[in-house]
């Protein structure tokens, strides 16, 4: 394996090994505590611009296969793992993780103390970093990091959103037959605005009984409003996606119009944040975010705890309770995980009910959306 070096904006400089792409790359350092699903995480567009430190100790064990993709490619800048396993063992595996990362120019950093990095992010917050398998000089890396734009300054949405509208045609994965379900007959038609949507969100919407048309982030609210009034669509879904929602001014403008037009809407993660911002409640940045598959979230109406998949660095402020009801709360830090707007057919969740990877008990939320738009 090649040597690799990482330099963090707090001055930390560490040597490690690398797999995947032989390159130099700048991104934001976050950690994810999921114990399974590295392929889904690496192909989740929400991680665009980030280096993901995996706290799971052994990575690569189950290789990579085509069914576990959450989009068409790897999106994160790179992955940082304690131990990389080139040799894999799983009946669905098709190739090694290394080959997958290589294909998309994505870096893998391994043989490094991930617990040290995790604790650093825990105490100092998410930070910018540079990794290289080519440059070993600390000063040179520092210069590269300083020249590079910070994550907030980059609009990754433009990179990851689809360029053309398309119809999504697949249901969820059948883990007995090891294939995707065909789309069931649709009971409603929706538009999903793609800010970097995870495939399984579309699968879940479809499986719940919605015909899903995916459209780019450069959408026009007027068109959607017209189509809604013509009963061509029953509702709008706002997807997850990477980066800071506050920089997405253009999208916020359009969403405001949709809100004013009383169109039924449902948002997940970035979509949830954009809805809040568009209602006038600016998101704030969490110290190190929520990334993993084990956070307890309380459903405030059923009083039940759902173990959820999480991936966000930003959060909606508590003041939004002025206009919305909190439907879900994170039991770790009491942050808002779900909202139902008081005078609008709109609700949203911060966590990831589509899981993939992660626990699936929140996927009833997709049916909630169908029920909302069928009304």
């Amino acid at each position, binding site marked *: 394996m090649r040597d690799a070096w990482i330099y963090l904006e707090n001055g930390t400089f560490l040597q490690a090994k690398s797999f995947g792409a032989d390159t130099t790359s700048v991104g934001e350092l976050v950690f994810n505590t999921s114990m399974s699903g590295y392929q889904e995480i690496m192909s989740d567009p929400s991680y665009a611009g980030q280096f993901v430190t995996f*706290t799971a100790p052994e990575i690569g064990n189950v290789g990579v296969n085509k*069914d576990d993709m959450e989009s068409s490619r790897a999106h994160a800048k790179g992955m940082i793992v*304690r131990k990389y396993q080139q040799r894999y063992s799983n009946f669905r595996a098709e190739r090694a993780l290394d080959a997958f990362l290589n294909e998309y120019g994505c870096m893998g950093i391994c043989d490094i103390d991930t617990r040290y990095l*995790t604790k650093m992010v825990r105490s100092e917050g998410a930070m910018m970093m540079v990794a290289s398998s080519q440059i070993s000089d600390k000063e040179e890396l520092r210069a590269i990091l300083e020249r590079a734009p910070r994550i907030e300054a980059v609009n990754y949405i433009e990179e990851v959103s689809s360029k053309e509208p398309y119809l999504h045609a697949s249901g969820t994965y059948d883990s007995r037959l*090891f294939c995707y379900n065909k789309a069931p007959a649709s009971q409603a038609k929706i538009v999903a605005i793609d800010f970097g949507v995870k495939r399984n969100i579309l699968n879940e919407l479809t499986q719940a009984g919605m015909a899903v048309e995916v459209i780019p982030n450069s959408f026009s609210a007027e068109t959607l409003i017209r189509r809604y009034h013509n009963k061509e669509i029953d509702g709008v879904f706002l997807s997850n996606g990477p980066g800071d929602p506050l920089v997405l001014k253009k999208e916020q403008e359009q969403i405001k119009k949709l809100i004013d037009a009383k169109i039924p809407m449902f948002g997940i993660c970035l979509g949830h944040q954009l809805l809040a911002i568009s209602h006038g409640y600016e998101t704030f940045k969490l110290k190190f975010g929520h990334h993993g598959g*084990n956070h307890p979230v309380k459903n405030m109406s059923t009083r039940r*705890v759902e173990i959820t998949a999480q991936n966000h660095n930003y959060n909606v402020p508590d003041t939004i309770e002025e206009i919305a009801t909190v439907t879900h709360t994170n039991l770790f830090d009491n942050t808002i995980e779900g909202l139902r707007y008081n005078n609008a057919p709109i609700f949203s969740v911060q966590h990831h009910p589509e899981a993939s990877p992660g626990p699936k008990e929140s996927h009833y939320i997709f049916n909630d959306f169908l029920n909302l738009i069928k009304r």
Partner: protein
Amino acid sequence: MPKRDDIKTILLIGSGPIVIGQACEFDYSGTQAVKTLKTLGYRVVLINSNPATIMTDPEFADRTYIEPIKEEIIAQIIEKENVDAILPTMGGQTALNVAMSMHEKGMLEGVEFLGANPEAIKKGEDRQAFKEAMMKLGMDLPHSCYAYNMDEALSAAEEIGFPLIIRASYTLAGGGSGVAYNIDEFKQLAQRGLDESPVTEILIEESLLGWKEYEMEVIRDRADNCIIVCSIENFDPMGVHTGDSITVAPALTLTDKEYQRMRDASFEILREIGVDTGGSNVQFSVNPRTGRMIVIEMNPRVSRSSALASKATGYPIAKVATLLAVGFTLDEITNDITGTAASFEPVIDYIVTKLPRFTFEKFPEAESTLSTSMKSVGEVMAIGRTFKESMQKALCSLETDLCGFNPVDGDLEFIKHEIRRSNAERMLYVAEGFRRGLSVEEIFDLCAIDPWFLYQIEELVALEEHIDIDVLNNETALRHIKVDGFSDKNIARLIRKNSNVDLSENDVYNARKRLGIALEYYEVDTCAAEFEALTPYLYSSTNITKLPLQQRRVSATKKVLILGGGPNRIGQGIEFDYCCVHAAFALKDMGIETIMYNCNPETVSTDYDTSDVLYFEPIDFEHVREVIDHEQPDGIIVHFGGQTPLKLANALTAIGANISGTSAKVIDLAEDREKFSAFVEAHQLKQPQNGLATTKEQAVTVAAALGYPVLVRPSFVLGGRAMRIVYNENELNSYMDEAVSVSNDAPVLVDKFLDQAIELDVDAISDGTNVYIGSVMQHIEEAGIHSGDSACSLPPVNLSDALINEVEQQSKKIALGLGVVGLMNVQYAIFQDEIYLIEVNPRASRTVPFVSKATGIPLAKVATRVMMGESIEDALAFYDHYRVVTTSNGVLKPRLKEHIAIKEAVFPFNKLYGADLVLSPEMKSTGEVMGISSNFGVSFAKSQMAAGNIIPTSGTCFLSFIDMDKIHAPEIARGLHDNGFTLVATGGTQQVIEAAGIPCERVLKISEGRPNIEDVMKNGEIHMAINTSDNNTSKKDAVVIRQIVLSRKIPYFTTLSAARATIAALSHIGNDSWNRPQALQDYLN
């Protein structure tokens, strides 16, 4: 919902003695449960027959019954204590079975089940009900069929096809289960299963041999909140009982989609079975080629796996399950480790490896191939940052002289054979296979262990070649080697081999320190560092990244390190963990910071809230030393964990470590035969005459000089390994030929054997000036049976005061003469009214918990204070809650109350098929029980009942004595006859009895024709058997007889003294009220 107020008194049922399949994990869970319920303000009543448990300490429960876990006794306790509810899910299969049986008989009217209701237990435990529930859910199951007799079994076998799994219903640890490849094996297993199942039911199942096996540890509350605490993957594929499998957490070869499928299925299963408030374990099997997932079974209670999962993640399953059982929901509970919500799923950033610990060396006749019936007696757990490190640390933890993947001997065919055969050392043969050039594919074809694990072992073996003298000067190389978990000792071994230089473990340690490579410590924190850990539960790892070395941990107060006992095994089990836990409690009472060190996941000692700091590490010199470097403790207690820590005393002293209490020099003096003999002489004590032999001829000469019988054993062995009594030269010759390899380094010790002597055990504490005689116990079995296997009585039954006084005086002389500071155990033999010193151990003994329970003075706690420098008087005063300490005869001792306590040993013969149940100087018992009452006979009967050897009050008793014992036959026969038993005996014995005028029928030996003793036993005509034996009897009928009594559970006694005690019991147990339970608190107050 907060705690329930409608229940006040809760009965907790323990799991009884340590047996294969049920070990200290239920003391761990039960202790957590008692503590939790008490904190909530409930009145807790506890029943457990095992005195070596923390849970039965009188200060834990409000009312503690050390009584046999039997229906009629529990019923009496429920009535007497006004019990509102029972918690049967903390005491393993024992508790669950007794509660279910009582429920079905209507004995629990008005008593609520907590944790799991009877319907759920039935659905989870009854295989047919479980199968129906799974089919309702649409879960995939192996093809299977029930049988209640041999005919049904045979037709089921035909239908399903070989290989087949046979499982007996309602047995623990898969007792009565096995894999059959052909019809002969099948018939044998089916019969055994039908015999062992209390309901004569077996399940015959499609074999899933070679499939992958997983376990999910699940918790569910009354609001239907469900969490997975931990996933566990078995290294060994299906076909080996999970208790005997190497297991790893987390699961390593599942994608998220497969993992979530298993997670969802686990929750669905708990819902369907109806486990509303507690922890369960669900086992799955996955076809490695197709991914087909099958549900194997579920346990609606805490288990060995849940203890492992708790230790592996830091999440206290038993405590949380207890809270849920009394009304809380998960979101109302806080995670102690992080202070955040407990309603989450733990995540870990390390790999946990569990290795089972076997003791086949003690049962050479037992079948050593692993199968679906559990055979291991203990386990170790190791934590590392990678599988490689974790696995190699686990191998070091086992204490089977391994320092990693040590090489094994044998030609390639043999190596392949042992890779194919599931056995205790298969992982070593796998590594050896790679050394001999086998490929991953070839090894996989032999054993079906997942290739991922094989890759890791292959890589470790490949690295071995590169471990040469140069790595000691190469920081990068040596770090890499340490990161993969190679121990210093193993590195030294490999350098010696590869570079042909003389090198010790210490040289590797010094090289590491020079290069700045140290073991460093990481928290087990339930959350992979997402939150700060509040409780220091630590493991070591070598960091792959070169960072500034961790600062050593500084404490504000004095701190003491307690070294634990490692894996449970025969000779060293829960008793030693009990002592270590007591040391921690006593230090806490003194305001001293406690640091616990152990590698056994089943134990109370490794509960994170037993001590202030917990190190989960192999108990070997390297790992202990590194912790000492890191902690710099003010004292180290090596005397409480059995031989494991004790044997490190010298090495630790040599590096300047501060051993508390009795010094390494004293330990050495007591263990060194020559030095000790000199000591004995100087103090005018008496030892059986003895000698040393390094050749067969020498042994014969020595034995002749001493006179037969003699006791022979190899030097430097523990737990009575290969110790034997030989009665003549022939036996001695064959012993020297078969049993031992003798050399100048390992001579054979030959002692004059004191035949028919009475053996005594004394536990004492000394502060160097005064001595407290904790107890004088009289063994029921005569000298020659290992003290751990012998029943014993406290107080002695029939010794004169003068003799006891003399024993006390001698014990005092020894303690003060040796310079013991802390605990000491002495064994004496009384032979022809003379006192002989057999053995002195300046450490905690196996009997410490028993004595503590019986007398009310917690010996290990008192000893801990003494070891910290307090006077024995002050230390006793601190713990003398029952005001029993008195001074007479120049020693301190407990004033004995009216009760008599009997300790009886419990044996694994029914689990180790083929093993013979003869007692000898080699210890074979796995656990113990206590019987207590105001009368010797009743206490003995209770102890037998608790051990599963229920003495009948009438019927036919079979007698067979070896020639030497025949003169005692009339006495025994008369006792039985007077109590109304019909007697039958084999030829010689029958003649002796008849001649004495006692009616006794002759029964034929097996060789004498039919119907013979085998037939009448199988026909259920024998209700009790007394059969004495010597070295030769194992070759005769006795073997068959012993196997029948085992499988038919016929009460069985093998010594004259046990027979006498039984007769003493008979006159008391005739009426119904003999076994009236009484709480320990009542006995002591």
